[in-house]
């Protein structure tokens, strides 16, 4: 791969895009079959494997090119801007679910309870239903349940995520100042906190299912609660994985105080996950 210095680096030929496309295809095919209850769901795992392989190989190429010094400041900017807009798209994905939460709480449920234009809906279809939140709807879908408050585990988890944001920032400063030990220590602490968060979240889910009868199918409250916290947890898992990779790369000494885009991109992602959690904590757990 010849490359003239000073020019924008345009890689010539890569198999990863087509590998990834095939992986996604097999993944979706298997997943759709599994949802339909057919025995042909196993390809989903094969597809997932291919996709992970694609990520691994693709990023390996990128890291090699970066270490080889192919990337100018302009290429660096492309990566940065790309990451920012990717995170923005993730924000909009969560916005859809937050939108559903707000719509249900402030409009749909009150209408079912007879407010405003919902007067006859309530009288004729759901007589006796009183709007309130949390609710599993006029038909009590999922049965009696106990909602979860902001104290206890959620509060601890909030503290954990906020702390991880701080440790990450300390690690970043250490990287910029060339303090290796501090960098490795605090970055390690960051992903450790991430995994602790996930562990506690899993524990909370078990408790909710077992003792609170609060489940994914507990009406609109269960739906919004588990979809929001679930997708958030999924993103924490991704972020923590990214942090581990970046940590390993720090161990290997890939980053310089000046050039460490992967570190920064992961940090942005982690802060994004953090901010989403704050939104969750406020609007799902607290109010």
């Amino acid at each position: 791969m010849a490359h003239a210095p000073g020019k924008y680096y345009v890689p010539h030929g890569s198999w990863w895009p087509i590998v990834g496309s095939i992986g996604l295809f097999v993944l979706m095919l298997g997943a759709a079959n599994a949802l339909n209850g057919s025995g042909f769901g196993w390809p989903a795992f094969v597809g997932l494997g291919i996709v992970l392989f694609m990520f691994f190989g693709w990023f390996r190429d990128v890291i090699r090119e970066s270490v080889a010094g192919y990337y100018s400041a302009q290429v660096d900017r492309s990566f940065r801007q790309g990451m920012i807009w990717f995170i923005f798209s993730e924000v909009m994905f969560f916005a859809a679910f937050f939108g559903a939460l707000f719509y249900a709480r402030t409009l749909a449920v009150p209408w079912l309870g007879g407010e405003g234009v919902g007067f006859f809906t309530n009288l004729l279809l759901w007589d006796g239903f009183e709007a309130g939140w949390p609710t599993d709807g006029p038909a009590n879908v999922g049965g009696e349940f106990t909602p979860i408050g902001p104290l206890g585990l959620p509060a601890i988890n909030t503290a954990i995520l906020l702390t991880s944001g701080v440790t990450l920032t300390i690690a970043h400063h250490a990287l910029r100042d060339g303090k290796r030990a501090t960098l490795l220590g605090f970055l390690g602490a960051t992903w450790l906190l991430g995994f602790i968060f996930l562990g506690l979240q899993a524990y909370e889910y078990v408790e909710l299912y077992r003792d609170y009868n609060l489940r994914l199918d507990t009406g609109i409250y269960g739906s919004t609660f588990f979809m929001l916290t679930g997708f958030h947890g999924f993103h924490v898992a991704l972020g923590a994985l990214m942090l581990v990779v970046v940590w390993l790369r720090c161990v290997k000494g890939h980053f310089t105080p000046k050039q460490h885009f992967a570190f920064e991109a992961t940090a942005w992602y982690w802060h994004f996950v953090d901010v989403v959690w704050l939104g969750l904590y406020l609007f799902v757990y607290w109010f």
Partner: protein
Amino acid sequence: MSTTATHAPAHDDHHNAPTGIVRWLTTTNHKDIGTMYLLFALLMFFVGGAMALIIRLELFQPGLQYVQPEFFNQMTTMHALIMIFGAVMPAFVGLANWMIPLQIGAPDMALPRMNNFSFWILPFAFTLLLSTLFMPGGAPASGWTLYPPLVQQTGDALPFVILAIHLMGISSIMGAINVVVTIMNMRAPGMTLLKMPLFTWTWLITAYLLIAVMPVLAGAVTMLLTDQFFGTTFFHAAGGGDPVMYQHIFWFFGHPEVYIMILPAFGIISEIIPTFARKPLFGYDAMVYATASIAFLSFIVWAHHMFTVGMPLAGQLFFMFATMLIAVPTGVKVFNWTATMWRGAMSFETPMLFAIAFLFLFTIGGFSGLMLSIVPADYQYHDSYFVVAHFHYVLVPGAVFAIMAGVYYWLPKWTGHMYDETLGKIHFWLSVIGVNVTFFPQHFLGLAGMPRRIPDYATQFANFNMMSSIGAFIFGLSQLMFVYIIFKAIRGGAKATAEVWDSPKGLEWTVPSPAPHHTFDEAPQVK
């Protein structure tokens, strides 16, 4: 299109460039990828078009002739999904791939590998989508909007459609990120934002729209999926949810989506009219600001698709006035295009013919949109053929004509050959007649009360339907000419000069025709 034979001798850095299928699978070249997008879109245009002709065949006469009602509904649903996500959007992305780097003086797109990923996802996504035709229960038949609770009656197809939409979304988001980053980071020195050609400008704004709303569609269909398979009740009143909520989330995506399909078209028209009127575009800055305001407004008008489902009065008023407001920047655009032609030294090659047809016919669609935005009027028009006429006027002689205009305009740049002008003109006239015969009578059908998405109708609608079907076959069959003209130009024809047209403006006309495989390795200076 651009073949390896066109390599300038200066490029010796890929003497071992792969050939054959491997070249296309592994390419990172914006021109290759643009070509693949365009050919894919063309293929989907015919797949979706075949479905449209099945619809029009059934509607040729009242009564049930050729297909079952269930299958008819599958056709309307699949036709729309394929045309929107498979034909119009990929065609615009293909044009963006080809032209944006050429217009801003960049060596390639900013993230070339991701560019190829965006493309290659699409054939797989549409394989998933099209496979539903052969499943128990058939393809989805709920209409492209996939409203619950109707869509929940889909058979095995449901998870396939939803996951296919996820793939299309991933592709679109990556493509849009690439466009934004390319435009923000790869412009040649001196190419300030307000010097960018309008096609690039409109695509920049379109890309922002895509990044903002494709994830929302992903969220909406994910909720459908969990409602169906995991017991959530987002859209079930019994559990405290609301099917209308789906419509809000969907249209928060859906209305910006229709602008995603028209803003790049505005850009193409803004390139073509000045070239053939031999005058600079009238009101360049106003065009940019109008595009931006249309994009902004497109986020706050979504509920005009839902006037009849029940909404508080204040909501109806807000969405009505916000919708009408869009007519203002749209009017600015139409005015500026007209003013550009005013006293121009006009000539009427095929791209210009399509552009002028766009101007008139898109405006008709805009006017019918304005009628639809009036709440009490929409109570009458909603879900009638009037709506069908409206969106087909903005999409076919709007978006699709703009794509065709763009293809004719830039084809010589891509292939190095002039297309056959006589055939191009015949294609144009057949298309413009076909489109109007197809869709103009649908206004009358709608006003007279014929509902949309229905395989049979009362006999008083027979004449206009027959007319519409004849027009559809004229239009559909004449598109075979389009394919012929394109491939004829690929294979040969009069040599095109670098400028192709009479002193057109823009960097793309400074590189040879066909554009070499690599262009602007050295950034040009823009004054």
